[in-house]
Protein backbone atom coordinates (compact mmCIF):
# COMPACT_ATOMS: atom_id res chain seq x y z
CA UNK A 1 0.00 0.00 0.00
CA UNK A 2 1.46 3.40 -0.91
CA UNK A 3 2.43 5.60 1.97
CA UNK A 4 -0.35 8.09 2.69
CA UNK A 5 0.40 11.72 1.95
CA UNK A 6 -0.28 14.20 4.68
CA UNK A 7 -3.12 16.50 3.62
CA UNK A 8 -1.57 19.93 3.80
CA UNK A 9 -4.95 21.55 3.17
CA UNK A 10 -5.64 20.74 6.80
CA UNK A 11 -3.88 23.62 8.48
CA UNK A 12 -1.66 23.25 11.51
CA UNK A 13 -4.10 25.18 13.65
CA UNK A 14 -7.00 22.91 12.75
CA UNK A 15 -8.38 21.09 15.75
CA UNK A 16 -9.01 17.37 15.55
CA UNK A 17 -11.55 15.61 17.75
CA UNK A 18 -11.80 12.02 18.98
CA UNK A 19 -14.39 10.36 21.20
CA UNK A 20 -13.21 8.59 24.36
CA UNK A 21 -15.11 5.74 25.99
CA UNK A 22 -15.91 6.43 29.67
CA UNK A 23 -13.98 3.43 30.97
CA UNK A 24 -10.88 4.38 29.00
CA UNK A 25 -10.20 7.36 31.24
CA UNK A 26 -7.93 7.09 34.25
CA UNK A 27 -6.79 9.45 36.96
CA UNK A 28 -3.09 10.10 36.56
CA UNK A 29 -1.65 9.83 40.08
CA UNK A 30 1.18 12.27 39.37
CA UNK A 31 -0.73 15.08 37.71
CA UNK A 32 -3.97 14.23 39.53
CA UNK A 33 -5.74 14.80 36.23
CA UNK A 34 -8.00 12.57 34.21
CA UNK A 35 -6.31 11.33 31.06
CA UNK A 36 -7.43 9.10 28.19
CA UNK A 37 -5.65 5.78 27.95
CA UNK A 38 -2.99 5.69 25.26
CA UNK A 39 -4.88 2.69 23.91
CA UNK A 40 -7.58 5.11 22.77
CA UNK A 41 -5.21 6.11 19.98
CA UNK A 42 -4.18 2.59 18.98
CA UNK A 43 -5.84 0.29 16.50
CA UNK A 44 -5.12 -2.37 13.92
CA UNK A 45 -6.37 0.25 11.47
CA UNK A 46 -6.02 3.99 11.04
CA UNK A 47 -7.37 6.25 13.75
CA UNK A 48 -10.61 8.07 13.08
CA UNK A 49 -10.80 11.74 14.00
CA UNK A 50 -13.16 14.58 13.19
CA UNK A 51 -12.06 17.91 11.73
CA UNK A 52 -13.45 20.41 14.20
CA UNK A 53 -14.10 23.24 11.73
CA UNK A 54 -16.40 20.94 9.72
CA UNK A 55 -18.47 19.70 12.62
CA UNK A 56 -19.36 20.48 16.23
CA UNK A 57 -18.96 18.84 19.61
CA UNK A 58 -22.68 18.21 19.66
CA UNK A 59 -22.65 16.43 16.32
CA UNK A 60 -19.67 14.26 17.22
CA UNK A 61 -21.30 13.17 20.47
CA UNK A 62 -24.86 13.05 19.17
CA UNK A 63 -25.13 9.26 19.09
CA UNK A 64 -22.71 8.70 21.97
CA UNK A 65 -23.77 11.04 24.77
CA UNK A 66 -21.90 9.03 27.41
CA UNK A 67 -18.57 9.47 25.65
CA UNK A 68 -16.01 12.17 26.37
CA UNK A 69 -14.25 14.19 23.69
CA UNK A 70 -10.62 15.23 23.31
CA UNK A 71 -8.94 17.61 20.89
CA UNK A 72 -5.45 18.21 19.60
CA UNK A 73 -4.22 20.34 16.75
CA UNK A 74 -2.94 19.08 13.43
CA UNK A 75 0.37 20.71 14.33
CA UNK A 76 0.60 18.71 17.55
CA UNK A 77 -0.24 15.55 15.64
CA UNK A 78 2.37 16.30 12.97
CA UNK A 79 5.00 17.17 15.57
CA UNK A 80 5.02 13.53 16.68
CA UNK A 81 5.26 12.19 13.14
CA UNK A 82 1.60 11.50 12.37
CA UNK A 83 -0.23 12.39 9.17
CA UNK A 84 -3.85 13.09 8.38
CA UNK A 85 -5.99 12.35 5.35
CA UNK A 86 -9.57 13.44 4.77
CA UNK A 87 -12.00 10.55 4.72
CA UNK A 88 -15.49 12.06 4.57
CA UNK A 89 -18.35 9.68 5.28
CA UNK A 90 -21.99 10.21 4.28
CA UNK A 91 -22.95 10.51 7.92
CA UNK A 92 -19.84 12.46 8.88
CA UNK A 93 -18.28 14.81 6.30
CA UNK A 94 -15.72 15.87 8.94
CA UNK A 95 -14.29 12.36 9.25
CA UNK A 96 -10.56 11.98 8.69
CA UNK A 97 -7.97 9.28 9.27
CA UNK A 98 -4.75 9.66 11.21
CA UNK A 99 -1.66 7.71 10.22
CA UNK A 100 1.48 7.01 12.19
CA UNK A 101 4.91 5.52 11.78
CA UNK A 102 4.25 1.95 12.90
CA UNK A 103 4.34 -0.79 10.23
CA UNK A 104 1.32 -0.46 7.95
CA UNK A 105 1.12 3.25 8.65
CA UNK A 106 -0.60 2.80 11.97
CA UNK A 107 -0.12 5.03 14.99
CA UNK A 108 2.73 3.58 17.06
CA UNK A 109 2.61 2.96 20.79
CA UNK A 110 4.93 5.89 21.45
CA UNK A 111 2.83 8.19 19.27
CA UNK A 112 -0.35 7.02 21.02
CA UNK A 113 1.27 7.71 24.38
CA UNK A 114 2.23 11.21 23.34
CA UNK A 115 -1.25 11.90 21.99
CA UNK A 116 -2.77 10.79 25.28
CA UNK A 117 -0.54 13.31 27.03
CA UNK A 118 -0.94 16.31 24.72
CA UNK A 119 -4.65 16.11 24.00
CA UNK A 120 -7.11 18.32 25.85
CA UNK A 121 -10.59 17.60 27.09
CA UNK A 122 -13.39 19.25 25.18
CA UNK A 123 -15.98 17.25 27.05
CA UNK A 124 -15.08 15.14 30.05
CA UNK A 125 -17.73 12.82 31.37
CA UNK A 126 -16.87 11.53 34.78
CA UNK A 127 -18.74 9.23 37.09
CA UNK A 128 -17.00 6.23 35.64
Amino acid at each position, binding site marked *: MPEPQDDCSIGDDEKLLR*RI*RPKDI*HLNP*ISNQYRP*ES*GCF*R*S*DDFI*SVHIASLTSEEKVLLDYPEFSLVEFTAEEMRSIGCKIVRDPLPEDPAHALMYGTAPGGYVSKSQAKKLSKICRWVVLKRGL
Partner: protein
Amino acid sequence: MSIVQTAATIDHMVGKEQRFQISANTSQWSAVVVTNRLGWWQRRALQSLYEISSLPENWDSYGSRPPTENAVECAKRLIIQIDRDNFLQPRIIPISGGGVQLAWHSGVRELEIEISTSGFIVEYLKSERGEPLDDGLLEIEDRSRIDTFLSWLIA
Protein backbone atom coordinates in the same frame (compact mmCIF):
# COMPACT_ATOMS: atom_id res chain seq x y z
CA MET B 1 -17.83 -21.96 22.52
CA SER B 2 -16.40 -18.52 22.07
CA ILE B 3 -15.04 -16.79 25.12
CA VAL B 4 -15.70 -13.46 23.53
CA GLN B 5 -19.28 -14.23 22.67
CA THR B 6 -20.21 -15.85 25.92
CA ALA B 7 -18.13 -14.05 28.48
CA ALA B 8 -19.98 -14.40 31.74
CA THR B 9 -17.57 -14.67 34.59
CA ILE B 10 -18.54 -17.06 37.29
CA ASP B 11 -16.50 -17.37 40.44
CA HIS B 12 -17.13 -21.03 41.00
CA MET B 13 -16.04 -23.10 43.96
CA VAL B 14 -14.99 -26.62 43.20
CA GLY B 15 -13.88 -28.36 46.37
CA LYS B 16 -11.25 -26.12 47.86
CA GLU B 17 -10.17 -24.73 44.52
CA GLN B 18 -11.48 -21.41 43.43
CA ARG B 19 -11.88 -21.19 39.70
CA PHE B 20 -12.91 -18.71 37.10
CA GLN B 21 -15.20 -20.10 34.51
CA ILE B 22 -15.95 -18.29 31.28
CA SER B 23 -19.01 -19.79 29.76
CA ALA B 24 -22.64 -18.96 29.36
CA ASN B 25 -23.33 -22.65 29.48
CA THR B 26 -22.31 -23.89 32.90
CA SER B 27 -22.24 -27.46 31.73
CA GLN B 28 -19.13 -26.67 29.74
CA TRP B 29 -15.78 -25.52 31.07
CA SER B 30 -14.65 -23.54 28.07
CA ALA B 31 -11.90 -21.83 29.99
CA VAL B 32 -10.91 -22.54 33.53
CA VAL B 33 -8.18 -20.93 35.56
CA VAL B 34 -7.35 -22.21 39.00
CA THR B 35 -7.14 -18.98 40.90
CA ASN B 36 -6.31 -20.07 44.41
CA ARG B 37 -2.62 -19.84 43.56
CA LEU B 38 -2.95 -16.40 42.06
CA GLY B 39 -2.44 -13.09 43.80
CA TRP B 40 -5.31 -10.73 44.44
CA TRP B 41 -4.14 -8.40 41.69
CA GLN B 42 -4.14 -11.25 39.21
CA ARG B 43 -7.68 -12.26 40.08
CA ARG B 44 -8.84 -8.69 39.70
CA ALA B 45 -7.02 -8.40 36.38
CA LEU B 46 -8.62 -11.59 35.10
CA GLN B 47 -12.01 -10.27 36.12
CA SER B 48 -11.37 -7.06 34.17
CA LEU B 49 -10.16 -9.10 31.22
CA TYR B 50 -13.33 -11.15 31.18
CA GLU B 51 -15.38 -7.97 31.37
CA ILE B 52 -13.80 -6.44 28.30
CA SER B 53 -14.06 -9.73 26.43
CA SER B 54 -17.83 -9.29 26.52
CA LEU B 55 -17.89 -5.79 25.07
CA PRO B 56 -20.44 -5.30 22.29
CA GLU B 57 -19.64 -4.52 18.69
CA ASN B 58 -18.83 -0.83 18.21
CA TRP B 59 -17.82 -0.48 21.87
CA ASP B 60 -15.42 2.33 20.94
CA SER B 61 -18.02 4.18 18.79
CA TYR B 62 -15.73 3.74 15.77
CA GLY B 63 -16.96 0.32 14.71
CA SER B 64 -14.50 -1.90 16.54
CA ARG B 65 -15.20 -5.51 17.32
CA PRO B 66 -14.65 -6.72 20.88
CA PRO B 67 -11.25 -8.08 21.93
CA THR B 68 -10.57 -11.30 20.08
CA GLU B 69 -10.40 -14.65 21.78
CA ASN B 70 -6.72 -14.93 20.83
CA ALA B 71 -5.86 -11.56 22.38
CA VAL B 72 -7.80 -12.33 25.55
CA GLU B 73 -6.17 -15.74 25.88
CA CYS B 74 -2.71 -14.24 25.41
CA ALA B 75 -3.41 -11.57 28.02
CA LYS B 76 -4.64 -14.23 30.40
CA ARG B 77 -1.44 -16.23 29.97
CA LEU B 78 0.61 -13.11 30.61
CA ILE B 79 -1.26 -12.29 33.82
CA ILE B 80 -1.10 -15.82 35.16
CA GLN B 81 2.58 -16.37 34.48
CA ILE B 82 3.76 -13.32 36.43
CA ASP B 83 5.17 -14.74 39.61
CA ARG B 84 4.47 -11.87 41.97
CA ASP B 85 1.85 -12.28 44.68
CA ASN B 86 1.56 -8.67 45.72
CA PHE B 87 1.88 -6.41 42.77
CA LEU B 88 0.26 -3.38 41.25
CA GLN B 89 -3.14 -3.76 39.68
CA PRO B 90 -2.88 -3.24 35.91
CA ARG B 91 -5.53 -1.39 33.99
CA ILE B 92 -6.99 -3.67 31.34
CA ILE B 93 -7.89 -1.73 28.22
CA PRO B 94 -9.48 -2.89 24.98
CA ILE B 95 -7.79 -1.77 21.77
CA SER B 96 -9.76 -0.87 18.66
CA GLY B 97 -9.75 -3.77 16.25
CA GLY B 98 -9.67 -6.48 18.91
CA GLY B 99 -6.45 -6.13 20.88
CA VAL B 100 -5.86 -5.83 24.62
CA GLN B 101 -3.55 -3.58 26.62
CA LEU B 102 -2.29 -3.95 30.17
CA ALA B 103 -1.01 -0.79 31.83
CA TRP B 104 0.79 -0.50 35.15
CA HIS B 105 1.51 2.80 36.86
CA SER B 106 4.03 3.29 39.65
CA GLY B 107 5.12 6.78 40.60
CA VAL B 108 6.32 8.52 37.47
CA ARG B 109 6.84 5.26 35.62
CA GLU B 110 4.40 3.39 33.45
CA LEU B 111 4.59 0.08 31.66
CA GLU B 112 2.22 -0.90 28.89
CA ILE B 113 2.03 -4.30 27.28
CA GLU B 114 -0.24 -4.53 24.26
CA ILE B 115 -1.43 -7.70 22.61
CA SER B 116 -2.45 -7.58 18.98
CA THR B 117 -5.75 -8.73 17.55
CA SER B 118 -4.14 -11.99 16.44
CA GLY B 119 -2.64 -12.59 19.86
CA PHE B 120 0.73 -13.21 18.20
CA ILE B 121 2.29 -9.76 18.41
CA VAL B 122 3.06 -8.26 21.80
CA GLU B 123 4.48 -4.77 22.16
CA TYR B 124 5.72 -2.98 25.24
CA LEU B 125 6.20 0.66 26.10
CA LYS B 126 8.08 2.03 29.08
CA SER B 127 7.47 5.67 29.92
CA GLU B 128 8.27 8.23 32.59
CA ARG B 129 6.04 11.22 33.30
CA GLY B 130 4.04 10.32 30.21
CA GLU B 131 7.08 10.47 27.92
CA PRO B 132 8.00 7.26 26.08
CA LEU B 133 11.42 5.87 27.02
CA ASP B 134 11.61 2.55 25.27
CA ASP B 135 9.34 0.39 23.17
CA GLY B 136 9.53 -2.75 21.09
CA LEU B 137 8.34 -6.27 20.62
CA LEU B 138 8.13 -8.81 23.40
CA GLU B 139 7.81 -12.57 23.54
CA ILE B 140 4.98 -13.44 25.87
CA GLU B 141 6.90 -16.50 27.10
CA ASP B 142 9.98 -14.42 27.94
CA ARG B 143 9.28 -14.33 31.66
CA SER B 144 12.74 -13.07 32.52
CA ARG B 145 12.37 -9.98 30.36
CA ILE B 146 8.86 -9.28 31.60
CA ASP B 147 10.10 -9.60 35.16
CA THR B 148 12.88 -7.14 34.39
CA PHE B 149 10.27 -4.67 33.12
CA LEU B 150 8.18 -5.10 36.27
CA SER B 151 11.25 -4.61 38.46
CA TRP B 152 12.08 -1.41 36.56
CA LEU B 153 8.53 -0.20 37.10
CA ILE B 154 8.71 -0.36 40.88
CA ALA B 155 12.41 0.47 41.33
